[in-house]
C-alpha cells in the first residue's frame, strides 16, 4: 500500500480538473465521477482513501451518496469531504451524523482541501 486514492465527485468538470491536478501533484491516484450514482459504484469497487463530493448533482446527490456509503466505513473507514456552494443549517446536522465526514463551502481553497487530506492521511512522505 503506497499511494492514496481519491475520488472526486462533481458535476462540474473544471472543479474535478482543479482537484485532480492538485491531488495528482501530491502523488495521489485520482478517480472521478460526475454524479453520486457513478461515485457509489466506484467506491464499492475501489474503496478510495478520500472522497470529495459536491451536494447538488444530477441522478444522485452528494447527501444520498454519503448516507449510502457511510455503512461501508464500518469495515474500513475513509475521509469524505462534502463541498457545497451554500451551507444550509441542516447540512451541518447530517454531515455531523456521519463518520469521518467534513463540510466545506464553495468556493473552496484547493490548498485547504489538501491540508484536510494530509491531516487525515498524513504527509505524502508517510504514505509508503
Amino acid at each position, binding site marked *: 500500500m503506497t499511494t492514496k486514492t481519491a475520488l472526486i465527485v462533481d458535476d462540474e468538470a*473544471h472543479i474535478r*480538473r*482543479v482537484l*485532480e*491536478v*492538485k491531488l495528482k501533484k501530491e502523488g495521489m491516484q485520482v478517480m472521478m465521477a460526475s454524479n453520486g450514482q457513478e461515485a457509489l459504484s466506484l467506491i464499492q469497487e475501489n474503496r478510495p482513501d478520500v472522497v470529495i463530493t459536491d451536494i447538488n448533482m444530477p441522478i444522485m446527490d452528494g447527501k444520498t451518496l454519503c448516507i449510502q456509503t457511510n455503512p461501508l466505513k464500518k469495515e474500513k473507514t475513509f475521509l469524505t469531504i462534502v463541498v457545497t456552494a451554500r451551507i444550509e443549517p441542516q447540512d451541518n446536522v447530517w454531515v455531523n451524523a456521519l463518520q469521518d465526514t467534513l463540510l466545506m463551502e464553495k*468556493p*473552496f*481553497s*484547493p*490548498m*485547504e482541501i489538501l491540508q484536510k487530506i494530509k491531516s487525515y492521511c498524513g504527509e505524502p512522505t508517510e504514505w509508503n
Partner: protein
Amino acid sequence: MELKELQNFLMHLTPISHLQYQVWDPDGNRLYPDSEQDIGDPALSQAIQSLTTKVLEKNSYQQDLFAGRHFICGYPLANGKGPLGSLIAYEAETGAQGANASAAPRVWQHTTDMENFLASLAKLLQESWEAREEVNDLAQELDQSFEDLFLYGKIASQIKTLKFSDAMLQSLISSLLINLRADAAFASFYDKPEFNTLVAQQHLNTRLRTDMSFYQQLIDAIPAEVIDAGDKYFVVNRSGSNPTYQPLSPTEYRFLTVRIEHEEGFYGWLGLVSFNMNEIFRQGELQLLVSLAEQLSVVIANTNLYQDLELFIINMVKSLVFAIEAKDVYTRGHSERVSRLSMQMGRQLGLQGDELESLRWASILHDIGKIGIPETILNKPGRLTDEEFEVIKVHPAKGFEILKPVEQLASSLPGILHHHERFDGKGYPNGLAGEQIPLAARIIAVADTFDAISSTRSYRSAKSYYKALSIVKEVAGSQLDPKIVTAFNQIIDEAGYLVGEVSYAN
C-alpha cells in the same frame, strides 16, 4: 501522447514494417526498447548510438548506412522548451537480398519518405506533449484562480460588516499572507495609524528571519504620491536593483502595494512582500489586491459616514438635553451627571457593548419628556399639588413618544419609559415591580434619585452627598433595586466620589 503510448505505437508498428524503432533521451540513454533489452549486434548498437548523438548535436534528420547494409536514420524529438531525445528507425535484418549482394552497397529507396515519416511523427508527439503541458499549466492557473476566488469570497463576506475593525483587518491580512504565499502582508493608513496591520511569516531559515523594523522601514519608504498618478499600484520586483529599497534588507526581496482610495480621498496602502525571487507577482495577485483595496476603501468610507452619523446623533441628543435644561433651571447638568453615574453602575454590573451604549442614551435622555411639561410646574418653588404632580408623572411616557421615531434609539426607550418605576411596584407609568423593570431603568432610577437629592431642586435645597447616599440606601428594596444600590455604593466607595469630585458639586 505519453512515452508509454509512443512505445505501444512503435511496438505495433514494428511487425508491419520491416524497420525497428528506438527512442533515446537527450543524455544518450535508450528509453525504448528499455536499456536492459539486448538488440543483438553490438556493432550495430554502437552505430545507432553515435547516430543519436549526431541527431541531437545537429538537431535535424540524420541517416547512415551501417556496414554498407543496415540503413539507420533518426529525427530529433523536442517540445517547446528543448530537446527531449531522438527517434530512431533502422534495419535489423537486411534480408536475403542483402545477404546475396553482400559486396555491393545497398541503395535505400525511401530516404525522403523516411525523413517525412519521422518528421511527422516527431511533430505529432511534440504537439501532444505541448498540449498536455498547456492543459497542466491551465489547470495550475485554474487552481490559483480557485484560491483567489476563495480568498475574495472570504474577504467579501467579512467586508459586509459595516464597521471597519482591527479584527477584520487582522483576518484579512492573514488570509492574504497565506493564500498568496507571501512573506509579509500589510495595510497601512495615513489617517488611521491605529489600524496599521502587518502580518509576517515566521521563518525558520535565519537568512530570512527578518525583524519587523524592516517591514516598517519598507512601508515608510513607499512614496505618498506614486510616480504616475494614474497608477493604482506600486511594485518593486527586485530590491537589489533599486537604490531606495536595496539598503533596507541584505536579502533580496520584492514587493507589491496598491492604493486604498475612494472618491473622498487616499487612505493608504495594501501590500505584499516576498523573499522568493524565483517567482514574480502574478497579474492575478495584482488584480486581487486592487479589488480588495477597493472593497476596503468602501468600508472605510462607510465607517467614516457611520461615524459622522453617530456624531450627528450625539450632537442632536446634546441639543435636546440643552432644551430640557433651558426649561428646568434647577436640573442644569442633571442629565449628564445621571448619565455618568449610570454608566459607572452599568460597567460595575458587567454591561458591555450595545447594552452599555443603550444605557448611555437612555440615561442622558431620561428626562426629555419634561419638554412637554409647563415651566410653571417644573420651576415651581415649594410642594406640588396632586394635580401638578399628575402632570409631572407623564414625562417618562412623553419622552418615550418623543424619541420613538428615532430608530437608532429604539433600545434606549424602555430605560426612559420606566425610570420612575419603583422596585415595590408603586411607581409609574406602569407599576412594574422587581425585575419586570428593565435593568437600564433600575440603574437610571438609582442615579436619578441620588442626583435629585444631592443637587438643588426647586422644592428643596441640596442635601449633602453623605445624606443623599444614606437616603438611597434606605429606599433600597422599596423604591430602588437593592442589587443596584449595592453596586452604586461600591462605586462611591472605590472612587472616593464624595470627597474628590469637585465638578460634581457644580
